[in-house]
């Protein structure tokens, strides 16, 4: 920066003729260009390219234009998209409420004046920051039917450990089998492999969710609690009538983030099951079409369909949230 002052006075100053506003604008464009070139070049333009490709038969090389055939193919009644959407929605509908309710409970515990709570916050956040490929590899080992930690514990209590990630059957089916009941076909529940993936997901994200809930709890003014206590409210009433309603913006934000997260979830499912045994979510299906079969056109069409769905969920949640959260 000192070189600025060391400039010799007779050096030509090219911008001296420009007005102050024009100079500022030029500077602004200079400041913006590195970021905007990358964002436009590698995020915005690819959206258009992706749509164009989705209208073609493109496998490594472009073959032909086929209009909306990739979309109509994906939306056929016997398309693999439907089971994968089913898996995605199952994953989402179970893991989001599970994560959020556990996280809310933990946040309420950690909000108490307890010794060592800072330490627990650090420990709980650890799963979230570690490589999901590495931690999913560890969990896949722990879920191993014969050699895994989890089944060893079950065996120690006299049980017979299930096949976890290798089990395609639904959890309700497995439970009813052990009780010699017969369940109707539609009531199979998520596959056991999906259940294992959900357990892993909960382990990874509860610490993150708890941290955000703690931020939300910190925003509730103390006077609210004091006023409630003066009115003679007990702990349950305070939780039900003060904490939970006033926390609703945080809950709303978190549910949005976690639902979108479950729709996009990839690394850990890929490592744990590669999409086998009822865990082929739409995100995995899309990736598989590109990675294993090089079907760029079809994969693009699937990505657009998934994006439309995510957008729809987001818009619905915004609309619902605006009506039901207390700001």
């Amino acid at each position: 920066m000192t070189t600025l002052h060391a400039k010799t006075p007779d050096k030509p100053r090219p911008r001296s003729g420009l007005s102050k506003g024009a100079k500022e604008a030029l500077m602004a464009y200079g400041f913006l260009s590195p970021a905007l070139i990358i964002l436009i070049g590698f995020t915005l333009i690819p959206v258009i390219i992706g749509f164009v490709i989705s209208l073609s038969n493109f496998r490594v090389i472009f073959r032909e234009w086929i209009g909306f055939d990739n979309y109509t193919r994906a939306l056929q009644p016997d398309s693999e998209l439907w089971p994968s959407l089913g898996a995605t929605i199952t994953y989402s509908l179970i893991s989001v409420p599970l994560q959020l309710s556990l996280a809310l409970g933990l946040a309420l515990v950690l909000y108490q004046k307890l010794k060592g709570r800072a330490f627990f916050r650090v420990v709980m956040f650890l799963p979230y920051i570690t490589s999901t490929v590495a931690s999913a590899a560890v969990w896949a080992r722990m879920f191993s039917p014969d050699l895994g930690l989890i089944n060893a514990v079950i065996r120690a209590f006299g049980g017979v450990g299930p096949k976890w990630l290798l089990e395609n059957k639904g959890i309700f089916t497995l439970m009813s089998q052990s009780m010699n009941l017969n369940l109707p076909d539609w009531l199979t529940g998520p596959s056991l492999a999906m259940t294992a993936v959900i357990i892993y997901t909960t382990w990874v994200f509860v610490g993150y969710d708890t941290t955000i809930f703690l931020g939300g709890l910190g925003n509730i003014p103390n006077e609210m609690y004091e006023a409630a206590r003066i009115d003679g409210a007990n702990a349950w009433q305070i939780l039900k009538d003060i904490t939970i309603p006033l926390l609703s913006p945080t809950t709303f934000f978190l549910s949005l983030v976690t639902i979108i997260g479950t729709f996009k979830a990839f690394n850990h499912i890929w490592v744990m099951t590669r999409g086998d045994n009822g865990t082929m979510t739409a995100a995995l299906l899309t990736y598989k079409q590109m990675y294993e079969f090089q079907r760029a056109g079809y994969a693009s069409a699937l990505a657009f369909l998934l994006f439309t769905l995510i957008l729809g969920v987001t818009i619905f949640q915004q609309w619902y949230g605006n009506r039901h959260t207390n700001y």
Partner: protein
Amino acid sequence: MANTYANAPQMKFKFGRVALYLILIFVGILALLPFVWMVLSSFKSFGDFINIEFSSVPSALKSFWPWPPFGTSPPEFGNYPEAIRRIDLSSTYKTLTGIPLLARQFFNTFLVAAVSVTGVLITSALAAYAFAMLEFPGKKILFVAVLAALMIPEELVLVPRVIMMYEPLSGEALASQDFIISLIPRTGWQNTYAALTIPFMASAFAIFLLRQYFMQIPKDLFDAARIDGAGHMRYLAQMMMPLAKPAFMTVGLLTFIGAWNEFKWTQLVTRDLPMRTLSVSLQNFLQTDGGAEGQLAMAVAVMIVLPIVILYLFTQQYFVEGVAKSGVK
């Protein structure tokens, strides 16, 4: 419950505290157990690794800790060099260069993470400064472009980005290509560091976050600096960046961890093993020897996780605060 304890407030107090601590300890153990299991497993022989037996307390202790005093095996430090050796068998890299393949992949991972962090911090600081402090035509529309980029999930642009990494068409191939398809820019970055870094050297989220931070800094400060002769560049570097240090730390650390753990993209655009990163290498290893001999895979997992855990332990307040703030909006 409430009624039972209403007459004995002190007992309620003690019972409640103990229960809360028990919950915390239980959750803490659950959070740490997979890490502990991973580290312990990485020092076990294959025999000890597969021999897990919880039927009695001594055998359970031995399953975790097969070394003295609970067991008789010596710690197997050899898993780490053995994992490195097995990974070397998958390519000719070691024989050609003398450098272990995993060391190269470590270097790749670190390089990609470091370049991404530096890139994101520089491009985002400049852009955020322009949006927060400068006036220029087209400000609104350019900010809308950033917001649009913020809302587009990576998954949507994965496939077109891969095609943009293909080798450029030339000569006859270009001439015979469909006109619209020939308009797609092709960089030829496939299998290079450029593909792993350049698309990730800007972040709409970082611009947005830093702009929020910059706008909170009073403008009077700039006027004062201006009187002292500081220009925009100097004001950004010497005033704004130190003041917004927590935001820079949060953005930098989240970018570093995201890049370190990145998997999908790297697997799609790298072909040669010496261009791959640790996550992809571990996934490949799990498909081969690491799947059969889990203790070797655990050793590789420890090597991937350890640098991030150390970084996190030294900087955790920025994570926890940064994430808590991102939720409050």
